């Protein structure tokens, strides 16, 4: 009876492992080959919302840990831009994944307190779940 249970558990485990690996590798392959376009990364979306909502902690958690001064500058910039611009829209334009690095581009509409509107793009480079470049 014990052997039956062991066999059953082993079968389930092999299936689970295969499902996990196939989904992981298949997902990467689909992204690399651009079969269904590029899927927006959860980290890039969180980072964009962090920018628009002025969430310095979210931004800090999604960027590689830099030196003390760089982190302080990031907090300062977020504090200074607080309330200056109100987001109107956030559109994911698309991106590309290559060799573990993905690029995601966005278009943002903003309105200042004085009523001035801006329509600006932003490109994020994401690697290992962190935003390593923002332009």
């Amino acid at each position, binding site marked *: *009876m014990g*052997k*039956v249970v062991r*066999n*059953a558990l082993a*079968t*389930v*485990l*092999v*299936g*689970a*492992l*295969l*499902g*996990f*690996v*196939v*989904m*992981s590798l298949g*997902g990467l392959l689909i992204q690399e080959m651009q079969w269904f376009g*590029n899927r*927006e*990364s*959860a980290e*890039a*979306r*969180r980072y964009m*919302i962090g920018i*628009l909502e002025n969430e310095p902690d979210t931004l800090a958690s999604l960027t590689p840990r830099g030196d003390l001064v760089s982190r302080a500058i990031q907090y300062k910039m977020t504090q200074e831009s607080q309330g200056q611009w109100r*987001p*109107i*829209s*956030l*559109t*994911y*334009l*698309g*991106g*590309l994944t*290559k*060799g573990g*690095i993905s*690029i*995601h*581009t966005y*278009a943002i*509409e903003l309105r200042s307190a004085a009523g001035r509107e801006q*329509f*600006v*793009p*932003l*490109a*994020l*480079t994401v690697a290992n779940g962190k935003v390593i*470049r923002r*332009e």
Partner: protein
Amino acid sequence: MVSAQAGQARADEAAAAPVSRTLGPWVTLLLFVVGLVAGVAAQSYVSPAPAANPYPELPLIGEPPESVAVVRLILADDARALAAGMEGELLKELGAALEPLQEVFDMKFVGAVERRGDILASYVATGREQRAQSFSVGVVFRVSGGKVVGVN
């Protein structure tokens, strides 16, 4: 007599063993599929889909011909034509956007949006950087009034 009974018991046990120690093919298949589904679910859990966008989104449009013309010149490595077709300030913006690429092999259009005649057309440029390694950067052209007026 006792020996004969023990022998019979061993024979019964041996006959019963293959049935009780193996799973039938359908049960094995079912358990495998259950495992497969669990593996897929676990993978989805560790790499979740992006959170819902709390802001409105603009509809995506096709690739504007104005940015196509610039991309062609970049891919053709035609510095003379690029200089003739773009203002100095715009060339500086393009240089900054393509940083650190020294040579561009490919520029893939990924999407564009339009707002009151202002179009943002996004590309991913792939090329060679200073250390001869392949690298990709996001480049966004701003098109307005039938020409490229900005590069980010």
